[in-house]
């Protein structure tokens, strides 16, 4: 077998299972279990990862997305080689480093300086190597003199910055980042993303786990979507993220909202002349709703990429009658590029009104928009949501 270069991650048919029995580790239970074991009974388990295949070359960035409990962190742990796959094989060539947090890697009783050297050593670096990068780490983390203070006296932000800086400047061959940037402030987040692009440019392989889809798109070349222990999709980050967004939207629509006095009976989204929705064109929303009591309030509509966070919101305040009514809304200019979107809506009474019927924020319909494809931002730059803007350029 040819030797793989440092930074390669190779996962072949990896499976992972955890115990699933309601195990009571009491003595009598163990005896009962042993008795059953003699008769051929084996403990039940559940698979948390099934048949994962990955081949990531050095210097590539790989995103892992999926809802909570889908197995992302377990996969990271296997790549980190701290937990064994139950079947198949996982290989990571070279030094593997994970992002540190206080109490998991960073020791609160030690000073920043001691933590930096400690972790450098754990990563397998010599003191001289760490010392060479020491100033960069302190500068990046913006902790200055506090580097000789115990970490427990740091502010939350300082500790997070230190953890990121240690991992990102010790430049392991494989860097694992598990949902942590969201905690820092906006400026630090951008700084981290830039540092990540730099580290990757220097040849580090990056694994990035996040629920923050825009950062996944900004950081990763490729991504894998895990759902309930299965690999659902694998490919260029943008395609995988958009597939994932769609599924989030669809599942949200399927989950029927509870009855709160207002029911949406029908919801249609159409483009010009009842045709397809097109970027820059008009969009008609047709809603048929039914209310148990008359109410005065505002109807909000928003369009999102699947998640509950809309790109924009429109609002219509009026008094709504009891019984069935129809609401039509015409957006004169649909400002989003090609893609799949979800229409969300809610109806709220004004704050001072006696609370009557209302409609919680919920997805109402999915639709496809046609038009130009969104332009990709440079790596490390996070685009919050795509907006379609017709442009004219001139170079002279």
């Amino acid at each position, binding site marked *: 077998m040819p030797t793989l270069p440092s930074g390669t991650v190779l996962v072949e048919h990896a499976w992972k299972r955890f115990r699933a029995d309601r195990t009571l580790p009491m003595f009598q239970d163990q005896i009962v279990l042993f008795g059953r074991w003699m008769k051929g009974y084996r403990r039940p388990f559940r698979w948390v990862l099934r048949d994962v295949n990955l081949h990531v070359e050095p210097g590539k960035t790989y995103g892992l997305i999926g809802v909570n409990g889908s197995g992302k962190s377990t996969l990271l742990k296997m790549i980190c080689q701290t937990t064994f796959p139950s079947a198949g094989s996982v290989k990571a060539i070279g030094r593997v480093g994970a992002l540190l947090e206080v109490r998991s*890697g960073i020791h609160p009783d030690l000073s920043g300086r001691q933590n930096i050297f400690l972790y450098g050593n754990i990563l397998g670096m010599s003191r001289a190597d760490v010392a060479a990068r020491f100033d960069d780490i302190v500068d990046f983390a913006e902790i200055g003199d506090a580097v000789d203070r115990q970490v427990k006296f740091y502010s939350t932000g300082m500790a997070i910055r230190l953890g990121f800086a240690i991992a990102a400047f010790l430049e392991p061959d494989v860097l694992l980042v598990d949902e942590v940037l969201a905690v820092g402030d906006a400026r630090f987040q951008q700084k981290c993303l830039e540092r990540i692009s730099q580290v990757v440019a220097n040849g580090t392989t990056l694994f990035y786990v996040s629920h923050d889809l825009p950062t996944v798109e900004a950081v990763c070349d490729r991504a894998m979507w895990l759902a309930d222990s299965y690999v659902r999709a694998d490919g260029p980050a943008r395609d995988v993220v958009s597939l994932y967004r769609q599924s989030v939207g669809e599942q949200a629509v399927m989950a029927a909202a509870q009855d709160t006095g207002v029911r949406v009976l029908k919801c249609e989204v159409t483009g010009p002349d009842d045709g397809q929705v097109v970027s820059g064109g008009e969009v008609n929303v047709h809603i048929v709703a039914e209310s148990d009591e008359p109410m005065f309030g505002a109807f909000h509509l928003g369009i999102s990429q699947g998640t509950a966070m809309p790109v924009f919101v429109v609002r219509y305040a009026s008094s709504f009658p009891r019984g069935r009514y129809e609401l039509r809304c015409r957006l004169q200019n649909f400002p989003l590029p090609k893609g799949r979107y979800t229409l969300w809506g809610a109806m709220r009474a004004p704050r001072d009104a006696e609370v009557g019927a209302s409609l919680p924020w919920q997805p109402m319909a999915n639709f496809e928009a046609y038009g130009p494809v969104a332009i990709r931002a440079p790596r490390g730059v996070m685009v919050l949501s795509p907006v379609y803007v017709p442009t004219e350029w001139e170079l002279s």
Partner: protein
Amino acid sequence: MEPLSDEQEGGLKVFDITLVPDDPPEASLYRHRPDMLASARELLRRWDVMFSLAERDIRAQYKQAVLGIGWALLTPLVGLAMLVILASHLKGFGGGGKVPFPVWTYAGLLAWGFFGGAIGGGTSSLVSNKSLMAKSHFPRECFPMSQVLESAFSSLIALVPFVILLGLYHYAPRPTTVWIPLYLLVELPFTLGLVFFVSSVIVTMRDLQQIVPIFMPLLMLISVLKGLSIEEHHRLVAQFITTAPLRELYCVVNPMAGVLANFRASILEGFGPQWELLIPAAIGSILYLVAGYAVFKRLEVNFADLT
């Protein structure tokens, strides 16, 4: 599992999850076959991590304490005071013959302290480093071993009060003290083996977390106070265990008995190594190490998942 759509190499692949079998093929299931030699080699390569961890724990332990490292001097003295008071109130405890009792007791505390400290700290070394264990990959042995190292460090510091104590009682150590490294060499594998065993078993069986702190002081009382000078040892052991092979067997099972007796006899009474106690102790000690390490490597597969 074949992807549903494969536009090109590296393109988007969407998988049909109904095609994934319920279980992986039997042949690919992971069987944990620890390779002890390879592990030992890897351990040698990452030797320094052990020192880093020990340094971390020592620094963290004495940080923010007003007396700082002074506690490492005080703790054994307080222990000694308690033992001396206790022994003066209990019948049948105390010994040492012509050697002043505190000196005799402290010598025992020294040899015991290394072992007891290592077990005390090492027991929870895996459980308490859960998060570091999930985040970085280096030989797991470093966790318990760093505690053994830390205990060795404390024992070195505890030598200072011993010297003072010898001065106070005008008691010079005998020239046979030079044999001490040999006894420590016998004590070390036993300590390591037991630490490996306890720290790994505790991951699945937390009961030990309760048991160890109860039993260690008891064992200490028996070993240190009830420990014997060599002449007494010969007499008393003969009372309990009448035949010679059984006495040797006792030292195999409890290597500390052989080590402690030799340790004190050499420093304080001028005896050379009592081979009939030391050799069985060494054999037992190595057996403990091999068994403890085997258990550790066997259970290692669970560490990251169960801590």
